[in-house]
């Protein structure tokens, strides 16, 4: 174990996969967007001059190249940076990559990773603030990875690159500076294993990506008020570890879901629907969702906060769930 930032753990994972497999090829390489942490990977093009490709502003072309290169034997990671621009590549991401293995009857594969930075960023406004994970979840054939800690970003990024399937790797830049313990050596974390990030008995909070850390803080605070919150992080949406969530709801009987996608047909909708279908009898009250409201993202910080899954809304939902409101 050693302590490091989320950004350092992510950079370490990138270097590890580049070292261990020379098929790993970077198509674009702004893994930290424009944050100061970009210094951690600034030298990758110089370190791997034949394995890092600079891309024009052509997301559709770049993602398509990633899929094509993957089919032909490479392990490309395509970096789109701001998640909103994966929409430019939508035909390749949702209508090519996920169909390669299936349409070939299991003979071809497309082990490509699409990397994006998702979510509210402070001043991103309507066109630079997307969290496309729920649209992606509606697309069978894509793996979807949402790390929420330094250990997770390292372990999940390694597994994403090793996976034989097309994988979308989304992280929230607010996590970059977070510090935490990361195991040494091959720290791979298998895709499809949720983690109970905090055990509790009164209410299950399923949170994803940066919301996990936000909910852990809130849980710590609410412990002082006698509310014992269990925080479950699915870590990957596909494969999805529903069992861990059902088990938690089986224990608490209460469910709050906190996620940054827009509410309608969002990630929280799917988790709520599954629980209402498969674990209904365990529920002792309504399922509550705390999401980004169904509003385009406004620029002014006060407006952005107003429509986001903010602390106030999360606390209210938890208190309503446990009957303390």
């Amino acid at each position, binding site marked *: 174990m050693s302590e490091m930032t989320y950004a350092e753990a992510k950079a370490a994972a990138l270097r590890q996969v580049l070292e261990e497999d020379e098929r790993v*090829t970077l*198509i674009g390489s702004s893994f930290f967007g424009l944050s100061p942490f970009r210094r951690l990977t600034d030298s990758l093009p110089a370190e791997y001059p*034949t*394995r890092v*490709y600079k*891309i*024009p502003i*052509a997301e*559709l*072309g*770049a*993602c*398509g*190249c*990633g*899929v*094509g*290169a*993957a*089919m*032909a*034997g*490479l392990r*490309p990671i395509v970096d789109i940076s701001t998640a909103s621009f994966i929409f430019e590549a939508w*035909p*390749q991401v949702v*209508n*090519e990559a996920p*169909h*390669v*293995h*299936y*349409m*070939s*009857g*299991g*003979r*071809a*594969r*497309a*082990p490509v990773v699409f990397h994006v930075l998702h979510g509210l960023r402070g001043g991103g406004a309507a066109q630079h603030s997307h969290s496309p994970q729920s649209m992606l979840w509606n697309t*069978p*054939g894509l*793996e979807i990875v949402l790390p929420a800690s330094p250990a997770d970003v390292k372990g999940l990024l390694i597994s994403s690159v090793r*996976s*034989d*399937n097309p994988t979308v790797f989304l992280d929230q830049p607010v996590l970059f500076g977070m510090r935490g313990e990361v195991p040494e050596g091959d720290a791979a974390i*298998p*895709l499809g294993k949720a983690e109970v990030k905090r055990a509790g008995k009164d209410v299950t909070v399923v949170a994803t990506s940066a919301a996990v850390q936000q909910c852990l803080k809130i849980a710590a605070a609410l412990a002082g008020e006698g509310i014992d919150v269990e925080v479950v992080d699915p870590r990957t949406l596909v*494969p999805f570890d529903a069992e861990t969530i059902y088990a938690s709801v089986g224990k608490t009987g209460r469910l709050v879901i906190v996620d940054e996608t827009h509410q309608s047909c969002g990630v929280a909708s799917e988790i709520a629907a599954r629980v209402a279908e498969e674990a209904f009898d365990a529920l002792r009250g309504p399922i509550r969702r705390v999401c980004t409201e169904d509003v385009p993202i406004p620029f002014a910080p006060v407006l952005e906060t107003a429509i986001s899954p903010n602390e106030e809304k999360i606390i209210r939902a938890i208190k309503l769930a446990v009957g303390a409101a």
Partner: protein
Amino acid sequence: MLPDVSAERLVAIGRRMLLIRRFEERLITLFQDKVFVGHYHVYIGQEATGVPAIAQLRPDDFLFSTHRNHGHNLARGVDPKMLLAEILGRVGGMSRGKAGTLHLSDPQRGIFHTSAVVGGSMPLATGAALAGKQLGKQQVSVCLFGDGALEEGAAYEAMNLASLWKVPIIFICENNCLEAREDIPGAWHTTCLTTQRLIDIAAALGHSTAAIDGGDVGAMWSAMSQALDRVRGGEGPCFIEAATIRWPGNFGLWPELPMGLTNLAWVWGAGEGPAAYEGWFREQDPLLRYLRELQAAGIADRDTILAWDEAVRKEVDAAAQFALGSPSPEPAEARRHVFVEAGR
């Protein structure tokens, strides 16, 4: 003009073209018999483009096609039995009936995945070329598409990337907009591109270009062999525009056989046909054109050609028998292969 290659290769090209023709004709009759569902696109009239282009690839090169992919698959040597079974949605197909006509593939022959999205294959092919460059085995990626692909933004992004990275790719645009019935050069009936010289766009994006008569096997052969030399030498992408005259049976998505089955007597000027299509079968049909060239060069006479036809028809019969005899997949097949399960 015949390509400057051995008689064996010339014969192989002709037989492959004939196989495509008979395969597609059979397919049309099978569709009319309601043996399979969906819409589909046949390669009749474009045999002289795909066959000489694909014949020159190495076994480990990569090939990308479109919605109009049967001919490219056959030219690459894919088994007609499995191809037909797949088009019919049978479990004996290469994809066990999951792909159908639009997504035929044969990864062992470098046909990993066929996109039926217009323009969709161009970024994919560029990426495969990147792999070809990166893996160091001088593999080339060849991408065939229609004139319509250049209406999609994806085409430009792919062409720019290919040029920027200097990857070993050959883009072949099969421009089938020259109407057989109104074959005025420059009259693009079905395309909505405002340019009339498609190669100008590719040239502006840094490609080495060639515009050829796509009905002429020799022209395609030499354009392709030059392009292959160039791209295997690491000099960056080539773009070939092959203008093919539109086969009169190409009625949108559901083709018909307005002249019936191709009558090989048309090669030697005998045989009647619908007067409306005289231009087609007397002059434009690229298969007949090529067979006439073989005959004129003394490489195949009438009997030889008829013997090829008999062999080809038998092959197609066998394919039909195999495909029709292959059952529909079990429902559970639908849930397999969403993800690669091994090694997870």
